[in-house]
């Protein structure tokens, strides 16, 4: 306070012991995590497309039980992505129907 403007108070736990770990509050952490996820998605999609789908490599074969697993690049990825979106958007609608105040049964 006295002159040390912008200096944050150290985080302490309920016992007053200082806490060392605050990594995830850093300015770039969220951005980097998001970038990492994007990178993995793009990389695995590209791998699927180039290595398995284009037929450039002799012994490359994507083993799937169904044709859609084998021949749609990143089928599992897209299936997961849209499942997730569908799940959350549906759940929001369900919430309107069945959500009550916290002490409903009391």
């Amino acid at each position, binding site marked *: 306070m006295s002159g040390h403007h912008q200096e944050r108070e150290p*985080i*302490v*736990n*309920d*016992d007053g*012991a200082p*806490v060392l*770990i*605050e990594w*995830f*509050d850093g300015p770039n952490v969220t951005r980097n995590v*998001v970038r990492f*996820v*994007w990178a*993995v*998605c793009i990389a*695995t*999609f590209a*791998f*699927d497309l180039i290595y398995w789908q284009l037929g450039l490599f002799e012994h490359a074969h*994507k*083993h*799937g*039980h*169904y044709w859609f*697993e084998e021949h749609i690049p*990143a*089928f*599992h*990825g*897209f*299936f*997961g*992505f*849209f*499942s*997730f*979106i569908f*799940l*959350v*958007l*549906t*759940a*929001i609608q*369900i*919430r309107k129907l*069945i*959500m*009550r*105040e*916290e*002490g*409903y*049964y*009391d």
Partner: protein
Amino acid sequence: MTDLLLAIPPGMILIVGAFLAALLPGKLRAIAGIALPILGFAHLYGLPDDYTWTFQLFDTTIELVRVDRLAFIFGTIFHLAAFLSALYAYHVDDRVQQIAGLSYAGAAIGAVCAGDLITLFVYWELTALTSVFLIWAGRTEKSYKVGLRYLIIQVTSGVLLLAGALSLYSDVGTIHFGHIGIETFGGQLILLSFGIKAAFPLLHNWVQDAYPEATVTGTVWLSAFTTQLAIYSLCRGYAGTEILIPIGAIMTAFPVFYAVIENDLRRVLAYSLNNQLGFMVVAVGIGTDLAINGAAAHAFAHILYKGLLFMSMGAVLYRTGTAKGSELGGLYKTMPFTTFFCMVGAASISAFPLMSGFVTKSMILTAAADEHHTVAFLVLLFASAGVLDHSGIKIPFFAFFAHDSGRRPKEAPWHMLAAMAIAAAFCFGMGVWYEPLYALLPYPDVEYTPYNLTHVVTQVQLLMFSTLAFIVLWQTGLYPPELRSTVLDTDWIYRRAIPRVVGVAQKGMTYAFNAANAQFEQVFNLGVFWLAKKHRPPGVLGEPWPTGDTALFAVIILAATLVMYYT
């Protein structure tokens, strides 16, 4: 010595030991609690292969003990779970919870090692009677009511099992617990009984009702045994019963919607438990050797990572007094180890490569595809994305990251961390070094390799694209926030609808009764008035009678007596 060991049924060490340990003071009791599962496992391990202990009771054979491969793998994981739960609960200085936890585990172990349906029934009810004390140990009005509801449902399951066993005995003349199937009426009753404990759709709600209301450590105990005992029983009795495939598929899919919107994170885990059981039920329905291996392996892995997740949420509850997503966030700063262990559990349940869920769940999916159950396969894939949402992301994210709640709780106590560390080590260890687990499976001859390029890449695609979906929804503000709320489920029927209907019916009946009563009273009064009128002096019967009439009556009665006596 060997004879003595053979004369102890598995599980009995924990059950009897729990009551003996209760005589010990303070910390010694807790230490005994940790030691008993180790002792129990040593005993189980020391039994000869395919050991059975039978005796004749009247004209039926009671198989008190039957330890085959299927029983052994479940017995093993139950001992491990009991050990971890006891270690986790080391701080608890409450005889009720200590006895209840250990004897509950012992009853479950006894049940998986029971060779006939009557012995199974006895242990089945014992798991209910012991575990309810873990809920009642909360010692509040609420926990009392929850425990009562839980007990009613559990005992109902047991009664159905007994009825089914007796019906089966009259049909086929044996109470041996082998394959049962649904061809007989008894078989159907027993399936219903197992279905209640396995939390089949619409029979599921006792899990979400009871588990989050148990004590911090009680929930950890509860999560391991009852439902997995049901999975074991289904593996034993209903392998290849096709109706279980749609039932299991529904079980995997519908709880994930609930898990998205539920605020109490321990209740989210209860829905997640339901969803994971669905995978195992599908596997039982498929019923091939690979599928049954998958069910057993997944049960084994699931007990550890679900236990780990419940332990981490328990630690949060223990330190902050709440497990509600809306009141948590930012705890990673002061609880970094708990955070890390929780994330290990989350990665395991989501089936990231190198984690235990990956090497077990993939067996079930492969078995489903092998047998061309395409719809079930796709539903399981959908449910896998759902698991990632509620257990992989929601649990760790809302408890430890998300918005800083300003809470600065201490790290969990050492013994909780130790229990979590061991469970986490298993989650990672089994994912990497899966051969020992596979060697324990009921059908050792099935060839299965979890790691190949296609499988790893497609699984990473599934999980990372789903994570991306979360990021997109979060950043656009579409992801539903955690709200203080109650979410209605089927328990609404017996907690609200039936009491309401009964209440209305009661009112109606009271009204009808009162109205009828008033009418009756009127009629009755009229009757009384009429009688009184006839008997009072001006009435017919009120008149004084002449003596001659009375003498005549006496003669008639005497004559009648005479005639009746001599004919």
